[in-house]
């Protein structure tokens, strides 16, 4: 409640709400006792100010007893006890106040008047307490729904960011811009080839967008994907890249998580072909064994390359994804030799973590 009281606007609002309550009480007291309005105000206004603070402080009690945490009967009982206690204390204070008035003004009328309105005060105290509690529960539930809304919004944002990140790891901006540069030349020099590259690039992008949502894809689909990727790279690298594929026909129908092959060939391009001026061959071999699939990618390696070819982020992320999918049954072996680089990936054909 305190954070609501910090703003002057809210204090004004509470005053505006509370003033008619005080006036109503004063009118009631005056009609019940036959006192003048001002005399009734002397008896009523100060205790009502105290009552306001009692009502405000019940906010904290409400916060400890939320309907979704405790059952309703329990809450009503507890709030009832609280209402009785608070009102009791308040009546006691009000009584002391009337006696104090008698004492200081040297009269004997205030205490008698208090006795006359005792029942009214008691009823008003309990009623106001419950009213305040009701308002607080309303505010709390509003706050809660707003929080839930914000949380939902935050979750949506997080989800789209994750999607964007996964997209970024499958489509490298560097690859995209370099391909578009090559394409810009081809559109003028050889439109036929440009057309072909456009189709390959769009196939590649479509796969990245559509297949990212799937859980399993076939080896055949994955192969199409890396073929469109390598097709575009071949245009850029020209003579520097020769492809050599050995794919076992029986492996084609087997399933594996999407983007299992791309990081392997991307790694070969990035750490192999883009680091050397010499022409070389990228070998991709897929074999089917009774219980497993073996994927092998081989590329030349230049010793004088700037980056010492340590397995990049892409391969580490692939290993993580495969572990999520299969548990510890996959093997990713990286073999760095003097002049070539071999990555072997073995994945089980059964025993997916589903």
């Amino acid at each position: 409640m305190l954070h609501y009281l910090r703003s002057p606007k809210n204090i004004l609002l509470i005053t505006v709400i509370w003033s008619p309550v005080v006036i109503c009480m004063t009118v009631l007291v005056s009609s019940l006792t036959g006192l003048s309005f001002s005399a009734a105000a002397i008896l009523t206004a100060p205790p009502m100010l105290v009552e306001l603070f009692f009502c405000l402080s019940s906010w904290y009690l409400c916060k400890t007893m939320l309907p979704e945490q405790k059952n309703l009967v329990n809450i009503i009982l507890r709030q009832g006890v609280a209402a009785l206690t608070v009102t009791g204390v308040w009546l006691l204070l009000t009584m002391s106040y009337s006696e104090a008035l008698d004492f200081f003004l040297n009269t004997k009328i205030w205490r008698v008047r208090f006795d006359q309105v005792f029942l009214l005060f008691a009823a008003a105290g309990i009623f106001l307490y419950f009213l305040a509690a009701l308002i607080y529960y309303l505010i709390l539930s509003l706050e809660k729904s707003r929080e839930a809304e914000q949380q939902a919004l935050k979750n949506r944002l997080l989800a789209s960011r994750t999607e964007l990140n996964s997209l970024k790891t499958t489509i490298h901006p560097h690859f995209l811009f370099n391909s578009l540069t090559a394409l810009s030349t081809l559109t003028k020099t050889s439109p036929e080839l440009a057309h072909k590259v456009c189709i390959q690039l769009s196939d590649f992008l479509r796969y990245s967008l559509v297949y990212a949502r799937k859980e399993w894809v076939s080896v055949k689909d994955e192969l199409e994907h890396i073929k469109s990727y390598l097709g575009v790279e071949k245009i850029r690298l020209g003579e520097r890249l020769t492809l050599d594929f050995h794919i076992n026909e029986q492996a084609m129908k087997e399933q594996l998580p999407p983007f299992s092959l791309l990081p392997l060939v991307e790694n070969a391009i990035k750490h192999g072909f883009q680091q050397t001026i010499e022409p070389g061959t990228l070998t991709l071999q897929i074999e089917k064994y009774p219980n497993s699939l073996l994927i092998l990618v081989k590329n030349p390696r230049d010793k004088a390359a700037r980056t010492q070819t340590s397995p990049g982020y892409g391969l580490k992320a692939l290993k993580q994804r495969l572990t999520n999918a299969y548990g510890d049954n996959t093997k990713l072996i990286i073999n760095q030799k003097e002049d070539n680089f071999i990555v072997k990936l073995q994945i089980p054909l059964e025993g997916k973590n589903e």
Partner: protein
Amino acid sequence: MNKKRAIIVDDEALARKALRMVIDGFEEIEIVGECSDGFEAVKTIKEKKPDLVFLDIQMPKLDGFDVLELLGKDAPFIVFVTAYDEYALQAFEAHALDYLLKPVKPERMAKTLDRVKERFPGKSRQAVDKLLQQHRLKDVPHKRILVRDQGNIYIIPAEDIIYIEAQDDYVCINTLKKSSMKNDTLANMEKMLDPRKFFRIHRSYILNIDYLSKIEPYSKDNRIAILKNGKTLPISRSGYSRIMKLL
């Protein structure tokens, strides 16, 4: 009008062609050479002394930064060209250097050429030097050192270096096979190499600890290092304490 002579450096043939097609639209620029790798670029730029080089950053073996390092004071006005490289873009922005993004737009090229005219012959020289200095301290320790010796470029793997000696404005890098001169300071070399292996044993020497055989006292305060190949190097007092701290 005096045409500016330019060279295009990019490892991808289609990217070179793309740039050439854009440059062809500008009469004031004449392309005098195309290079497909850093080695060729350093050689061609030295030979042809162009006014202007369009330099791709990402290239195999020697990238744009390496080419700049090897050119040293011979570097002409450089226009950096890159497809997408957050690091490079940040560096260019930080040093207020002009760069082109691939694929290059003709309007953007026009702007760059205007700037080239304004800043000719080499106001950006200092900025490039600063950029290079900063770049060389990135990704340390370096696993290789680049050396240009007459017409040739050598890539010396760090593990092959036995010791480096300071000589005036140069450093002399000694390996088992040969020794080569590089226009650089010993302090720079110290920063670039692996501090767990390379020690400044003396004001004028950095030693690869893998090639150290033993240390012997020489005079009251001085010691000498005897290397595995029999060569001896002086060790200063502070150099000695630096070695002892690690051993």
